[in-house]
């Protein structure tokens, strides 16, 4: 059985007297341990709602979400589920609670009720993992956006989750910060942690195993990055944009250059072009 399994999941927001808004419209999905998947969609497509369904921050109004066999609607299991599926949010400022980096990372393990010595050890390991150990005594508001996100990641790692859901973690960062975060995620994937990465930047999905395109609460397409880049119509229909490199490759192919369609990155393209000479 899949690590995270969604079966015909629906979710509707109801707020006061306003008409209910259906955010998720019957989604089936299976995420295996060690998977690295990307969920892409424009604003309002339901990606953040979907993310919150993975760790019981929201529970479906219809259908079922199972995490490691546990139903997220089961109140008893909520904390176990949240320990297994960690989450990093978009705004680096709004997810840090503590006034010092070290305390921030300790917050999760403290909630799990771990003994102080073990917490210390985990904080150390987590900070090393994201390369922030020199900043352990810094107040978070003195860090850059990328550093704050790395602290947020460390504070999840310290809880030893099997899966981390990233909800547009780079949307508010500059290129430097973005690289820092992407590199850190790369490293976590290398450690075998299941990664669910939510974004609307198509160029960030290149390194994933599987891409899911979401529009209006429904899955439009599910496939490898290559499959997705070839389904140009669906991508554009979902208000997304293909990254420049596949566009260029497409253009060159049409002009008669014998390039293979599997080229997704700058490096691959340069290599392929050189090989033609």
């Amino acid at each position, binding site marked *: 059985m899949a690590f995270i399994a969604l079966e015909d999941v629906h979710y509707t927001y109801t707020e006061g007297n306003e008409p209910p808004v259906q955010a998720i419209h019957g989604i089936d999905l299976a995420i295996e341990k060690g998977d690295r998947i990307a969920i892409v969609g424009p604003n309002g497509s339901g990606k953040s709602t979907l993310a919150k369904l993975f760790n019981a921050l929201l529970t479906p109004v219809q259908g079922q979400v199972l995490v490691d066999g546990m139903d997220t609607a089961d109140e008893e299991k909520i904390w176990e589920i949240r320990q297994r599926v960690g989450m990093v949010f978009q705004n680096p400022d709004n997810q840090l609670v503590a006034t010092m980096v070290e305390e921030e990372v300790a917050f999760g393990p403290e909630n799990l009720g771990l003994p102080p010595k073990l917490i210390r050890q985990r904080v150390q390991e987590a900070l090393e993992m994201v390369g922030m150990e020199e900043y352990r005594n810094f107040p978070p508001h003195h860090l850059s956006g990328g550093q704050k996100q790395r602290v947020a990641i460390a504070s999840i790692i310290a809880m030893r989750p099997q899966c981390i859901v990233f909800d547009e973690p780079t949307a508010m960062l500059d290129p430097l910060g973005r690289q820092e975060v992407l590199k850190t995620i790369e490293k976590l994937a290398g450690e075998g942690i299941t990664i669910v990465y939510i974004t609307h930047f198509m160029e960030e999905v290149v390194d994933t195993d599987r891409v899911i395109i979401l529009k209006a609460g429904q899955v439009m397409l599910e496939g490898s990055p290559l499959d997705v880049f070839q389904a140009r119509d669906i991508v554009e229909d979902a208000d997304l944009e293909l990254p420049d*490199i596949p566009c260029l490759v497409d253009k060159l192919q049409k002009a008669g250059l014998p390039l293979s369609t599997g080229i997704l990155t700058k490096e691959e393209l340069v290599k392929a072009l050189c090989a033609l000479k």
Partner: protein
Amino acid sequence: MRIEIKGVHFRYFQEEEEVLKGVNMTIRDGEFAALVGHTGSGKSTLVQTINGLLKPTQGKVFLDGQEIGKDISFKEVRRRVGLVFQYPEHQLFEETVFLDIAFGPKNLGLEGEELKRRTRRAMEFVDLDYESLKDRSPFGLSGGQKRRVAIAGVLAMEPELLILDEPIAGLDPQSRRRLLDQIGALNSQHGISVLLISHRMEEAAVRAQRVMVMNKGEIVLQGTPGRIFEGREKLLEIGLELPPLTDVLWQLKEKGYPLRTDLFTVEEVAREILQCWGGFRCSKISP
């Protein structure tokens, strides 16, 4: 309107390092310029000295030859130079779209028909339908619409220069493109000078006629986008990325192929590569 910044220094606190270390810069009348640099490079501080929100600790800013704070008042400067901050939708506060956009012109003492005219015009600029939206609450709109309402709020002041700080951050691809197109039209069709601040070269800078790159409180590069990309090493050194397509040209050039590296659109780059690869006409120059 022409802005000249001469030897501007700025520091927030006496004991702290300078945020601006002697900046010289010109924004020409009617141009679309971009200011690029990463967080903390001083770009946001610099633009605040242009519209009179911050007073330089040293140096002068001129608006059409008049010195800000001396020949021309800060208040007057703020009217003529519109500044749209990052995530401007976070500054919305009125009950209706109309009232929020009219806030600026009202502060200028305008009322009645003129107020209506300006609000309607500002909304048209950013492609918001006046009739259907004016009485709606700005908080019930979509993210992209809120952003445009906020920008309209500045446009309603009818500035001659519009400065936008990361106007597309956080928007999805389609909204980003649409907004950049609208900003482009403001410049090309209505003659408003634009200074766009960004940290993503490929999205914003490529639309500008001139790009200025800022790092650690100084302007380190300036020129047309093409020219700027020629300074690849400098850009990488300060942690800015080239547009990916330009980078491909660079990497090929480094392998010894004689390619131009000042191009950045899919069409141009494809043409350049095809010129070399299509007919197999060009040969590698041994380094």
